[in-house]
């Protein structure tokens, strides 16, 4: 990993020209670190020679808390990890516990879960796009993305009452029935969204300044991705066609036809293209799903008290940020013995050191943005 750096010293002022190596601190409070992340950059003039990330500013002990809550009580906690994409976290957890209980959610619940998760994927990518563009200097896409995200959050609010930390799913299925007009709202959003994606593409994709700032910046090739365990759009931009929705289908993904966008270079521009295309594919999945939502129950056969048999399970889903995994060990009681979460942002963040070497200081901001990390997930 990164070399051990000196403690953040002041710039070396002994020589007349002061041309020594410099440790630059991008502190926990910074407009571009997307959360409380501290990055120590070891600079040689303008070039970055290495980094060291200091995390833990948002550590809340979620995994330890899980050992003292019942399975249902723990579900709202997982929303707060990747707070930008709360629904995905909930999906992973509920499916993991269902696996442990050997229970399947009914088809209607699975389809509604898929629709909400894909909408959440779009919302998460919209936040990423807006903030990433803002870091690179394009002021306008942020507001356009927030405008679209507002529509999705309205759907969430109508569905379960909350916009951000939704706790939308329950172990065994759903609590709330899809409200009247759910399909209409989703359809209206999806039909309008294609035009909006075209707006973002028009603003950024062909823009030579954007290309100059993102082409060949932060390259992470396939071998490095796999060695570091990076997943999600980062892995796919490097050329590896691996998406858990196709490789190990969960929820209702095996019923729908969609493509997995793959990049070639593994640079920031490719990650941008992959995420834009993923938004398009999510939209297609939603449109296919709302065409026929099966009738039936929304809750499976799960009792009021959940006591899964002793055992362990590992279940992973394709969250917007990457592969989100839950490893739950049960000892037969109402509270889990151990919940270990595999957060995609934490593992993707390790790639930062490799990606910034040799780049200029101004690129560090772009590279942190392209990793799409959420500190709630990194620190838990």
């Amino acid at each position, binding site marked *: 990993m990164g070399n051990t750096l000196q403690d953040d010293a002041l*710039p070396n002022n002994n020589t007349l020209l002061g041309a020594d190596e410099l440790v*630059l601190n*991008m502190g926990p409070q910074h*407009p*571009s670190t997307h959360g409380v992340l501290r990055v120590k950059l070891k600079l040689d003039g*303008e070039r970055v020679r290495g980094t060291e990330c200091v995390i833990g500013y948002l550590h809340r002990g979620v995994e330890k808390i899980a050992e003292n809550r019942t399975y249902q009580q723990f579900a709202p906690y997982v929303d707060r990890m990747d707070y930008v994409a709360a629904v995905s976290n909930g999906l992973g957890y509920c499916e993991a516990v269902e696996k442990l209980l050997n229970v399947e959610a009914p088809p209607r619940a699975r389809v509604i879960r898929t629709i909400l998760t894909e909408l959440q994927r779009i919302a998460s990518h919209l936040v990423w796009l807006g903030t990433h*563009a*803002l*870091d*690179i*200097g*394009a*002021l*306008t896409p*942020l*507001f*356009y993305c927030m*405008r679209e995200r507002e529509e999705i959050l309205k759907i969430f609010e109508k569905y379960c009452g909350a916009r951000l930390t939704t706790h939308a799913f329950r172990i065994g299925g759903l609590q709330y029935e899809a409200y009247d007009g759910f399909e209409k709202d989703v359809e209206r959003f999806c039909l309008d969204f294609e035009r909006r994606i075209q707006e973002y593409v028009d*603003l*950024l994709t062909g*823009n030579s*300044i*954007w290309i*100059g*700032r993102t*082409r*060949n*910046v932060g*390259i992470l090739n396939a*071998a*490095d991705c*796999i*060695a*570091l365990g990076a997943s999600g759009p980062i892995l796919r931009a490097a050329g590896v066609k691996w998406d858990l929705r196709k490789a190990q289908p969960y929820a209702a993904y095996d019923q729908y036809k969609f493509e997995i966008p793959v990049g070639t270079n593994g640079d920031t521009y490719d990650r941008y293209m992959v995420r834009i295309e993923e938004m398009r594919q999510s939209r297609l999945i939603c449109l296919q799903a709302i065409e026929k939502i099966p009738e039936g129950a929304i809750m499976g056969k799960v009792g009021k008290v959940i006591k899964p048999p002793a055992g362990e399970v590992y279940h992973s889903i394709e969250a917007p940020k990457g592969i989100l995994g839950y490893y739950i060990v049960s000892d037969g009681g109402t509270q889990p013995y151990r919940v270990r979460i595999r957060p995609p942002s934490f593992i993707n963040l390790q790639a930062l050191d*490799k990606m910034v*070497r*040799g*780049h*200029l*200081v*101004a*690129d*560090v*901001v772009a590279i942190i943005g392209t990793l799409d990390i959420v500190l709630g997930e990194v620190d838990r």
Partner: protein
Amino acid sequence: MNPTLHAILVFLQTWWVELTCGVVIVAVVPLVAGYVVLVERKLMADMQARLGPMRVGPHGLLQPIADAVKLLIKEDIIPDEADKFIFWLAPVISMVAALTSMGAIAFGPSFQVARDINIGILFVLGVSSLGFLGIILGGWASNSHYSILGALRSTAQLVSYETAGGLAIISGLLLSGTLSISGIVAAQEKHHVWFIFLAPVAAFIYLAASIAETNRAPFDLPEAESELVAGYMTEYSGFRWALYFLGEYANMIVVGSVATTLFLGGWLRPFPNVHWLNWLDFLPALIIALIGVYSIYRAGKQPVKIQTGFMWAVALACFAVAFVFAAPWLIQLLHKFGLAGSLSLDFVIPGLNGAFWFLLKVSAYIYVFMWLRFTLPRYRFDQLMHLGWYILIPLAIVNVFAVGVAMLLEANGLNRWLAMILTLIVVLASAIFLVRWHDRRTESASTASLAPDSYAG
């Protein structure tokens, strides 16, 4: 009477217009710059699907006043180790340079503080380059490593793009043959066409260079908030920062005025020599009167009484201004009907129409600045310098040659437009070549800079 008193009175009598203009510039331009900031925020909001400042005053119209008051009453913080004299001096230099260079700009055929300096454009260019001192001294006076770096970067950017901009201006000057501002506009009138059509590449180079001169996006890396080196303005707060900020917007107005004078025809109306378009002379009065009519129309739709009153006030102001603009024709009309025989045209302000066209063009230029700011991402510093030195300066040099050759061909009898198109083809070809070369160079440079150490395994 007392000879010194007499001398003073003679002095005031000869120079009262210039003195008043000077006072007006120092008093009014900061206020105008403040309202340009408001226009930018409203425009930014409009392009971003939101409303912008709405609370302070009707539709946010008192926002600049509120900002100015807030900045004035802020605590004056000076960093501990900072050099107090230079810390005070730097924003003052920046503001003074911007305001002084406004003195030479002619807003109309008779609106000019310093009348007919025969080095008009050069004066504006030179004095506005004094503003760089304000930046570099400001960065140094903050006594912070990052401020100094930001100031040096900013100055390096400004100096590079000033070279490119100066060369672009030379192309325009070649066509006009004189440095004085009224001479340049007269030359455009004589040529029957704005110089942007005779030297379009020069106009676009100057557009790019002036955006970089004023540290605007996409060239605003030295003062962007999301970058690590926070720039020369970090340690400045309160009114000192306001001086820098207003100096930047005043600089925008200056740069817009230079571009308008040189390339957009100054105070000439569109098609100044085409006689059948003479009705365009009525446009200023007409446009303002139409704005007044629109205000009356909107006044009926306001929800609150005070807003209705405000719209009526705006309408009345528009009609008053339109009346002033239309005064010459109204008086001629009255003369024709034999009424108001004693009224002469003497008190009519000459050149008011010209001032309207000039301000319209400067506003359009600044609109383009703001439009580009909200649309384009930011250049990285090395890309910025590369653009300036490798593309814009060579292109500007080629353009100077091209314009010279075109003028030579025209003097030897070739049709002016043919000569211009021939040389334009040459310049555009060189532009394409430079950009291709730049792209190939950045491709090879970035692949070469990747560290070869492999992490896998």
